[in-house]
């Protein structure tokens, strides 16, 4: 019995070799691609320097895949593609084929199975998203449900090339923002300080590290009802929720007061301008499951304005830089408030220190 009980030491193999799972044409032409074309939305054609070609069909899935769905995707890959699958950063799936005649049957097969072909070039590609209520320990909202609801409405922009340039949308269930920067980001924004369960703090939280986590030094140790606990200076508190992960008794999530905020203009590409961070445009949006219609309506309004007003190749940040923020708020009909004026460190750099005004 003692032998069976001995724990198995792990094989610390780390990150596996990618070449073993790569389509042979990609292995063969590694580093030797010449150019690409976009035959139709959702399809890429890459041509290697030796003239050989590979077609990619990009499809959207629900990201959280059950084994039935995975096997269905594998069946399609075996029957209509060449048995290889790649996942993109935004959880799209790419099938690769070297025979052009396989492209349309593959598209038909994935479409018949309920998947959506698109997400290339100047489209709205899949939202990148986080875990939310399904699995996170600190979420203010769900993620997969928000994405599903929003993409149901934006599907026509996923399957076409109607945007001035590509649009990356992200969601995040707290201000840590695991969803990351996006042309449009929909993030939880708490509006009330944490509610503290003083009976639990001493046992659950390492108090000095919780104090150290607060970005505005609003938390201090305190004796409450004779017990060591923490208290929050509510005039200083910015309701970010940074204290909640290290100290769950400092509950920041609130069914009513945890809202959604929308940020625009995050762009990680160096194309034309340097990479940019996203900026606040709307807040106070209700966290309204199961369909979050208010958030979707604002996203659609921003996208419609961008589509109508931006020039080819302008990402959302570049479009706004050209037309100016006053016009952005005018065209979208969104209110400009005192909360849009930054007061965090480095905020002066965001002020208009010039006489450049559009009339």
């Amino acid at each position, binding site marked *: 019995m003692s032998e069976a009980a001995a724990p198995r030491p*792990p094989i610390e193999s780390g990150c596996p070799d990618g070449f073993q799972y790569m389509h042979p044409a990609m292995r063969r032409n590694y580093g030797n691609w010449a150019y690409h074309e976009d035959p139709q939305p959702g399809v890429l054609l890459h041509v290697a320097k030796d003239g050989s070609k590979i077609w990619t069909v990009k499809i959207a899935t629900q990201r959280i895949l059950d084994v039935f769905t995975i096997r269905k995707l594998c069946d399609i890959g075996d029957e209509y593609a060449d048995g290889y699958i790649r996942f993109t950063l935004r959880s799209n799936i790419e099938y690769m084929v070297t025979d052009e005649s396989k492209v349309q049957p593959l598209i038909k097969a994935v479409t018949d199975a309920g998947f959506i072909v698109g997400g290339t070039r100047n489209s709205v590609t899949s939202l990148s998203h986080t875990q939310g209520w399904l699995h996170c320990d600190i979420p203010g909202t769900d993620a997969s449900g928000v994405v599903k609801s929003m993409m149901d409405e934006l599907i026509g922009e996923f399957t076409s090339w109607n945007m001035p340039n590509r649009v990356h949308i992200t969601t995040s269930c707290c201000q840590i923002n695991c969803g990351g920067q996006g042309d449009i980001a929909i993030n939880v924004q708490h509006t009330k300080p944490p509610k503290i369960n003083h009976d639990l703090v001493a046992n659950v939280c390492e108090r000095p590290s919780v104090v150290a986590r607060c970005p505005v030094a609003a938390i201090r140790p305190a004796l409450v009802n004779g017990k060591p606990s923490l208290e929050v200076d509510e005039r200083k508190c910015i309701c970010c929720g940074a204290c909640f992960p290290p100290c769950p008794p400092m509950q920041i999530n609130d069914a009513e007061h945890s809202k959604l905020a929308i940020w625009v203009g995050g762009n990680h590409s160096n194309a034309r301008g340097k990479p940019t961070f996203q900026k606040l445009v709307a807040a106070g949006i209700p966290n309204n499951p199961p369909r979050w219609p208010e958030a979707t309506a604002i996203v659609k309004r921003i996208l419609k304005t961008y589509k109508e007003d931006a020039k080819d190749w302008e990402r959302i940040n570049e479009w706004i830089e050209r037309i100016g923020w006053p016009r952005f708020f005018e065209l979208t009909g969104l209110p400009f408030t005192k909360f849009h004026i930054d007061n965090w460190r480095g905020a002066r750099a965001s002020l208009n220190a010039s006489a450049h005004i559009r009339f």
Partner: protein
Amino acid sequence: MAEHFETPMLDELENGPWPSFISGFKRLRDDHPEERIRETANSLLGQLEHSYETRKGYWKGGTVSVFGYGAGIIPRFSEVEGTFKASKEFHTLRVQPTPGNYYTTDMLRQLSDSWEKYGSGLITFHGQTGNIMFIGADTENTQSFFDEINEYGWDLGGAGPDVRTGMSCVGAARCEQSCIDEQRIHRTLQNNFTDDVHRPALPYKFKFKISGCPNDCQNSIERSDFSVIGTWRDDMKVDQEAFKGYLETKGRQYLIDNVITRCPTNALAINDDDTLAVDNRNCVRCMHCLNVMPKALSPGDDRGATICIGGKRTLKIGDLMGTVVVPFKKLETDEDWESLVEMAEEIIDFWAENGLEHERCGEMIERIGLVNFLEGIGIDVDPNMVNNPRQSSYVRMDEWDAEAEKWFERKAEEAAG
């Protein structure tokens, strides 16, 4: 089988054309041959519906790991286990994918088969920190599942204050813009720090991300502490015949409006003979013209990487982009590769020594200043590291002459080759 939990709100998410994760959960609940998986899916649906109704999450963390490791499992215990019993332990295993996320269908089936034996039957490709996320196993099965897939080549990723799982773009495998060997860079860096992935002992998380060109499809500059971005330093390649082809098909006005005038440094012009002129000394490798005309333009031959350090999202001091620490790193000889790894080691060691608890590398740099960081890791200053020189005169400069001398010495060494 216990009775199905009612899920009226989640049922709404089965409507509409986009693929529904809820339908997937229900397939596991209704159609899976194994009772354990059916029960787990039912319980999970019940708890998620409860979250939708009350607008709150009901998972708490804890401590779960596999034998020999201190990271890689995200423990989840239900706070409402009395009602939703079958998913009361619902841990995630973070597993490192290949650079660029490549799979064969055979391998996906094998992973699914293993997961079905021990877990919930739900897998996410991939989480925001780059891992395959096998969502939903109890503590005992976590070890069993890891043991099984570890035997055929898969290892856990990072979690907590450690080196996290790396991420790379599609890269040289299928992109003409790629300037570097992402596969090799990713695995060389990442697998040098396997110990730091599995045993959290750093101030906070540390991420490597690799993009083959300045389009940075991997979003490395905003989302990683150590961002490697492919670039080139000789002239870009121009196929003038292909450029004329674009002139004919797209039209002169289109190219003027969408290429020539969009160059951020005005480095492009159309000559009278309809050829393209490129001022390569003033090209900043932004990629725009290559993106619009991939047949006509391509990166040069003298390729390498720009390395930016310190990118991160909001907490605690606000967003930081990675900033240039190495303007150009050649990756050709064994020495080049060794020095890349040594640099990463220097950076992580210096940060481990000097970073405060829960302080990202970029936050430490902001706190101590870039120059102290550069001196700590032994890298010389370079004007490519700044947008502009200092504008504040509040600085003590009595070592000016010695510093100026260092610059001239470095320049002389470079000139001597």
